[in-house]
């Protein structure tokens, strides 16, 4: 049988775009399996991997949970895309903080990624926000980090939902706290609601810096403001409990708990999860209808809802790469969403075996 790649890709993209626009997928199974079949035909390393697992066009899965997930780190080993990567409209690179080298996610068409991220962000972050928000990013700008999916995402979100005066407060690896504090003071005077977005580590650094500057009083943000946290503590030495961090942020900026929103995404995905339940210590995160997940045990066996395991995501917006991704993230499926337990620090060479703690004399 002859296949027309362009026609097939365009048709699938159009279907996914329609589902995103309507926020409804007619048949997740059907679309996921057709995208997977497309990837078996055109994504050679993924197809080889599937073949090694006994999955081919002739022996295809029958539902979305049976699509073999590619391990996220495989993006470091091969160009996992259905097209010539030199034609990619978007190239994202993972930070590589866990293993020292980054993986690359090539995407053929920016429209799909943009539509997915904006629809998710709209629903997850700004759905009831006064329009427009002022965006303050505790991140590097896209100009500085052109291959950062997070910088790209927040830039697109700010352009779509912001007041056009967004700012970026990380230069190199430095958080520009002084400038941030000055800008927030101005914003507070102006009464423009703000969205502060950043990694967990950046927020911890911000709170530490505020303390160092003896800014211990609250900095109430204008009504309708919110904070979006993402990205975790990968590769960082100081790790703070998320609940504790959110509580400090809500107190510091006088925000209700549901306006401190956790986002969960990956460079290897095109869609994101956002907090949807703010009443539990471990918040439930919800996905848009075109992203579904399940958990597996250490042997890759699927686990029932509520049982903690490795998360596997099936993202229909990943049409031009791999539709199913196995992560290194620990979590469980609950109430149709996920509860993220987190990611253990990367294992490393042991003494006998884990480290002894530094002695008091050394600390002084």
């Amino acid at each position, binding site marked *: 049988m002859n296949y027309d790649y362009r026609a097939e890709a365009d048709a699938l993209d159009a279907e996914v775009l329609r589902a995103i626009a309507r926020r409804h997928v007619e048949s997740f199974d059907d679309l996921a399996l057709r995208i997977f079949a497309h990837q078996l035909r055109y994504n050679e*390393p993924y197809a080889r991997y599937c*073949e090694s*697992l006994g999955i081919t066009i002739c022996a295809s899965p029958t539902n979305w949970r049976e699509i073999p997930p590619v391990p*996220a780190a495989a993006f470091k080993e091969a160009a996992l895309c259905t097209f010539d990567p030199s034609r990619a409209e978007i190239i994202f690179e993972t930070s590589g903080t866990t293993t020292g080298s980054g993986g690359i996610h090539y995407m053929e068409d920016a429209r799909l990624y943009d539509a997915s991220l904006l629809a998710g962000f709209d629903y997850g972050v700004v759905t009831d926000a006064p329009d427009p928000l002022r965006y303050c990013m505790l991140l590097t700008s896209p100009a500085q980090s052109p291959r950062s999916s997070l910088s790209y995402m927040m830039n697109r979100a700010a352009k779509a939902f912001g007041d056009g005066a967004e700012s970026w407060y990380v230069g190199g690896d430095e958080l520009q706290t002084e400038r941030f504090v000055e800008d927030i003071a101005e914003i507070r005077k102006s009464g423009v609601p703000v969205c502060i977005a950043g990694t967990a580590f950046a927020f911890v650094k911000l709170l530490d810096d505020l303390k160092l500057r003896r800014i211990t009083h609250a900095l109430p943000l204008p009504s309708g403001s919110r904070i979006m946290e993402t990205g975790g503590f990968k590769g960082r030495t100081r790790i703070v409990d998320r609940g504790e961090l959110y509580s400090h942020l809500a107190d510091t900026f006088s925000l209700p708990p549901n306006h401190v929103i956790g986002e969960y995404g990956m460079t290897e995905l095109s869609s994101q999860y956002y907090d949807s339940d703010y009443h539990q210590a471990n918040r439930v995160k919800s996905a848009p209808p075109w992203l579904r997940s399940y958990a597996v045990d250490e042997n890759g066996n699927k686990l029932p809802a509520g049982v903690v395991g490795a998360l596997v995501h099936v993202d229909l917006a990943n049409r031009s790469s791999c539709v199913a991704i196995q992560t290194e993230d620990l979590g469980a499926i609950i109430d149709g969403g996920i509860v993220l337990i987190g990611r253990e620090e990367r294992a490393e060479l*042991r*003494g006998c075996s884990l480290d*002894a703690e*530094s*002695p008091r*004399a050394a600390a002084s």
Partner: protein
Amino acid sequence: MTALAKVPAKEIARAVADAADRWRDADFPARVRATGRIAERTGYSVPVVEYALDRLFFSIAFDALAAAIADELGELEILDDFRPRAGRTDAWAMPIGSVCVISSRTTIGVALPAAVFALCAKCDVLVKDREDYLISAFFETLHEQRAEFREGARAELWSSHDETAPALESFDAVVAFGKTETLATIRNALQPEARFITFGSRASAGYVSREALSATAPAKDIARQAARDIILYETEGCLSLHVLFVENGGVVGAAEFAALLDKEIAIADVEFPRGAAAARRTADISHARALTAFRKSTGATGVLDAPPPFLPRLANVVVVRDPAEALEYVRRHRLALEGFAIAGDRFDLIALGVNAGAVRLSNFGELQDPPLHGNHGGRPRIGEFVKWIDRTF
């Protein structure tokens, strides 16, 4: 003068061995209490903890202590008085003084052998205990054996931020386990003349020769032994099998051996169930397995490039042409080796272990069971806890 200075070394060793003997009984109340605490602290299952305690306390026997001391110092009594030495001056191996042992966070009772030899050298010993209080509990048993141990053998739990923590500059020797940065920090806290006995970050490897894979039965036996070396202590110890080199060309192929190994690991999982420590790493383990499968599907050329995963119950099985390729892997990934298990009676495999930097060569299945009368980390057992007084008149 130290608390044990006037106690004959033989009696110290005997008392230590007698205390260990009480701990060999799985129903000994102190051991029962410690077992639960250790399982909770380490996240290992109770059978794994029981196995570790058996290994630890069965190894601390009078004969083993006496043999190690006699081998290093010439005879046990040289710790008590001046003794003649063949072709050398008379000498007395006196205690170096006070010794602090800073144990690591995972391995069970890692501080104990060092502490025991320091006590046999009649040093005053303080051990930084862990949250399971294993060393404290053992020292209590020791106190019951002889009153002198009450002063000579102490264990405490302290943290790096604890203002009441002992000042390291007051010790004559410090034994520490950990990564390079921590060891460097500790070193800076010591008096310049203090002895610093370090056990840094290390891994272990094994090599299965093509001759050892001459038939399914011996291959299966090696796989069973290797499985134990991999899974015990959730692959977290420096003597856990982290990398397994399998030589091409055997009657049993490398892929077949890997399949045998997977089966044996599954069987060993029953005897030594996974604990909470492994459960916490489910996602990493599952992902690492999928990544290995992905690499194989791309032609396996990447396998030599893949570092050991350092994850519970996972070893990197690396197919090699010859020992040279295994050595290249060790060097490429800068693996500091502690143990090296060998299956195959070939001189070049011993040379490989030595050239790769391993300080202990063993059979498979014995990697995680180092004898007390052997060395640890390439160092003497007791030699660093004594100072020699020579007599020339």
